[in-house]
């Protein structure tokens, strides 16, 4: 039976879906993923944007799991990492960088509070790896190797785990309960740690223990010296010894006027420690200017706030009992300090030298094929393997920046390549995505928000105790901080493309599944790409 149609109407009403407007298109939108600057910057290779994504919805355990895939020490990192990620953060161009470090600390502390643990591997590989040094690099490698199913034994020369995190970083920056808890969590996975066990001869240890591979991560514990003519009665110490003795029963005797010689973070740590030990004056003597100082600016600032003084453009010529002779310097055209011949006397009960540290490489003496240059071991930067097959190295003992985060990154990278080497395979590396630059964002869509400042203990309290200087975030402001993330370069399912398409040509696939373009109807106008907040859509020319 035919439908009754009005006068002069011969066809049934049809849907415009019959009209495939996709044929109009000269450009097509495609979804892309880009490498966010924070992730690109992280020396430990953390997927920062990835774990912030979970934290944004309050899924802290998922966030912590995502984070610890790359770095097993979020509570430590959240305190001592120099967070260069925040320096790269695109949000800084809007208001201020996302407080990534403070959220990391929150997640780390939350994990300790809730007792979240790492899972032991489900399968044992049957291989046994030696790790030398229970510092950040060694324990990072031990963790990653254990996750991959290898048996791991860590040899540590010192009496406790942590390496330079314990003997180089003062308590006011890293409370020891936190350090211990994150170390023990790795032990709990079945990693064996032998304390007070110094490896004297690596070759012998490897053979005796039947190890299949080794990762060396010996810290820089030997203080560099400078020649300063001194009378016997002068009181000269080195920074490593001072910080190390803080871990023992007897605190170092520094006196009321303490002079620290050097311009790195260690010099700052010693000066601040001296203040806390009751010094009325802690004076840093540094031969260049503040701009040239290698120490991190925020640490210099905190030290100055605590009353640490700095004599810029000064060197120490000689040390007498209770007094130092200082020569004033000036910078030449190249920015190098040059002596001026002007001298002055600085009263001091003690002088602490913080002039850099070396690594004790004596364990390598009998090992073939290693190349040592400038006091560090040469490694292939792609794999962290030394010239001796099966022996890998990282942390302070290889050529790189010396900090905890770099060390953790070395441990992770080495572990992956040790695993591959043991299986006689190579690590499959995916090409990195192109950078998610600020110019690709549409910042209109992000709510305006200032950075939540960490509550800082007041200066008086800070200098008189070894309590932590940086306070943590509460859950509320951690959530707030996480939600400031722009998700640069990667879809976070804001539904903008789905909403703004004038042609309903975007298909929403549901939570976690993102979207798809319906190229049957997409006319290629590009509104979705223009209005994507995070720059995850590219327009590409159609093949004609």
């Amino acid at each position, binding site marked *: 039976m035919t439908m009754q149609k009005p006068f002069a109407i011969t066809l049934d009403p049809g849907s415009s*879906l019959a009209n495939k407007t996709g044929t109009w298109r000269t450009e097509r939108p495609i979804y892309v993923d880009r490498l966010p600057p924070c992730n690109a910057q992280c020396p430990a290779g953390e997927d920062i944007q990835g774990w912030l994504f979970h934290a944004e919805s309050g899924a802290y355990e998922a966030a912590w799991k995502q984070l610890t895939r790359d770095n097993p020490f979020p509570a430590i990192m959240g305190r001592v990492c120099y967070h260069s990620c925040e320096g790269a953060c695109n949000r800084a161009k809007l208001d201020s960088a996302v407080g990534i470090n403070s959220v990391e600390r929150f997640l780390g502390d939350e994990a300790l509070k809730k007792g979240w643990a790492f899972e032991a591997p489900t399968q044992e590989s049957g291989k046994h790896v030696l790790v030398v040094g229970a510092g950040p690099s060694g324990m990072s490698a031990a963790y990653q190797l254990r996750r991959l199913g290898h048996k791991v034994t860590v040899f540590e020369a010192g009496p406790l785990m942590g390496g330079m995190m314990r003997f180089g970083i003062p308590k006011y920056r890293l409370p020891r309960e936190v350090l211990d808890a994150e170390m023990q969590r790795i032990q709990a996975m079945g990693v064996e740690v032998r304390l007070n066990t110094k490896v004297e001869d690596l070759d012998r240890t490897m053979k005796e223990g039947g190890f299949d591979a080794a990762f060396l991560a010996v810290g820089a514990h030997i203080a560099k010296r400078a020649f300063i003519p001194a009378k016997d009665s002068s009181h000269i110490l080195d920074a490593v010894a001072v910080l190390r003795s803080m871990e023992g029963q007897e605190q170092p005797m520094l006196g009321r006027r303490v002079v620290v010689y050097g311009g790195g973070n260690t010099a700052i740590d010693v000066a601040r420690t001296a203040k806390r030990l009751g010094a009325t004056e802690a004076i840093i003597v540094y031969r260049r200017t503040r701009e040239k100082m290698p120490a991190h600016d925020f640490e210099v600032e905190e030290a100055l706030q605590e009353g640490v003084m700095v004599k810029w453009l000064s060197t120490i010529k000689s040390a007498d009992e209770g007094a130092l002779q200082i020569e004033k310097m000036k910078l030449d055209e190249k920015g190098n300090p040059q002596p001026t011949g002007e001298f002055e006397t600085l009263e001091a009960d003690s002088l602490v030298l913080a002039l850099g540290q070396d690594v004790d490489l004596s364990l390598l003496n009998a090992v073939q094929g290693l190349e040592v240059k400038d006091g560090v071991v040469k490694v292939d930067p792609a794999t962290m393997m030394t010239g001796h097959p099966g022996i890998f190295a990282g942390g302070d003992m290889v050529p790189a920046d010396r900090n905890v985060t770099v060390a953790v990154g070395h441990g992770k990278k080495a572990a992956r390549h040790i695993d591959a080497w043991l299986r006689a395979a190579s690590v499959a590396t995916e090409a990195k995505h192109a950078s998610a630059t600020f110019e690709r964002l549409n910042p209109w869509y992000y709510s305006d928000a200032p950075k939540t400042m960490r509550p800082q203990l007041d200066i008086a309290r800070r200098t008189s105790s070894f309590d932590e200087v940086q306070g943590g975030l509460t859950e509320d402001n951690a959530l707030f901080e996480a939600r400031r993330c722009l998700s640069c370069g990667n879809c976070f399912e804001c539904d903008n493309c789905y909403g703004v398409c004038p042609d309903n040509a975007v298909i929403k696939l549901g939570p976690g599944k993102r979207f798809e373009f319906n190229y049957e109807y997409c006319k290629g106008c590009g509104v979705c790409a223009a209005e994507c907040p995070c720059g995850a859509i590219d327009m590409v020319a159609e093949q004609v």
Partner: protein
Amino acid sequence: MNAPVKFYQTGTFTVGNRLLKPEQRSVQSSEERSNSLNSGHRACQGCGEALGARYAVDAAMRATNNQLIAVNATGCLEVFSTPYPETSWQLPWIHSLFGNAAAVGTGVAAALKIKARKAGQARSDVRVIAQGGDGGTTDIGFGCLSGMFERNDDVLYICYDNEAYMNTGVQRSSATPPAARTATTMAVGEHPGAEFGQGKNLPLIAMAHEIPYVATATVADLRDLEAKVEKAMSIRGARYLHILVPCPLGWGSASHDTIKLARLARETGIFPVFEAEHGEVTSVTKIRHHVPVEDYLKPQKRFAHLFSKAGDAQTLAKIQADADKNIRRFKLLDEEITA
């Protein structure tokens, strides 16, 4: 006790937001949205009107539980959505003439009223919207619309304002802004483009009828638009919604700039976004990042003559003065602009 966190990354600026509760999300973010104006329509790439119509009608569909009839004036929206025998509309939809959409809307509403009365109901659950472009609204359909207002008929009239007769080849309408080039206001002579001091401000005219509800919106602010449609549908009587919908063809802008231009129209103060009840302004959307009118005008070829080598600082100053006047009049900025 911790205060609740009130920060949601993109808040309500984006279409959706996984951090908001489902009931706080927009109609357009839902996989269940009615897609009242479906794919396959013949609007140009990046058409603001097609987008605005789907935004508005989908929101009205949700507000009325899909009990909605649409009446359409002649214009782009009618032509591109219903070339015989196809239709993109997924709701009952009727087109009659260019100038009578408001009157047809009145008639449909009256018929529904009688049907409800005969069925023993106090009033019909089925609601009516009438819609058209600026030509069909501010010029040709103006008499019918004014009558609909004056009688307070139960119709929501939606004007999709793209500021000229785009369907017939970009002729000036009474909604065309001063200095804009159209086919009938060429960029020639002493005062190129449309005249200053002419045209109508229909939202203000609607307000003068003291009808229950008048509002303006743009395709750049979805949540605001949806909220206004929802509010309009909660009210009985004559209501008017005026939505700015950029037209890549008529404005000479890039197809991907449609939403950006709507946003800039608001951020410059050129297009004030507000709502009014019974003739009084009840709320305005404040400017978030105030920018000069050049930012809005420059990407549009219809204003290209203002940015030629010689430039036209005088005309730009006049347009800026108009925008500043809007800012003062509707208090679009927290701090006053001193002229």
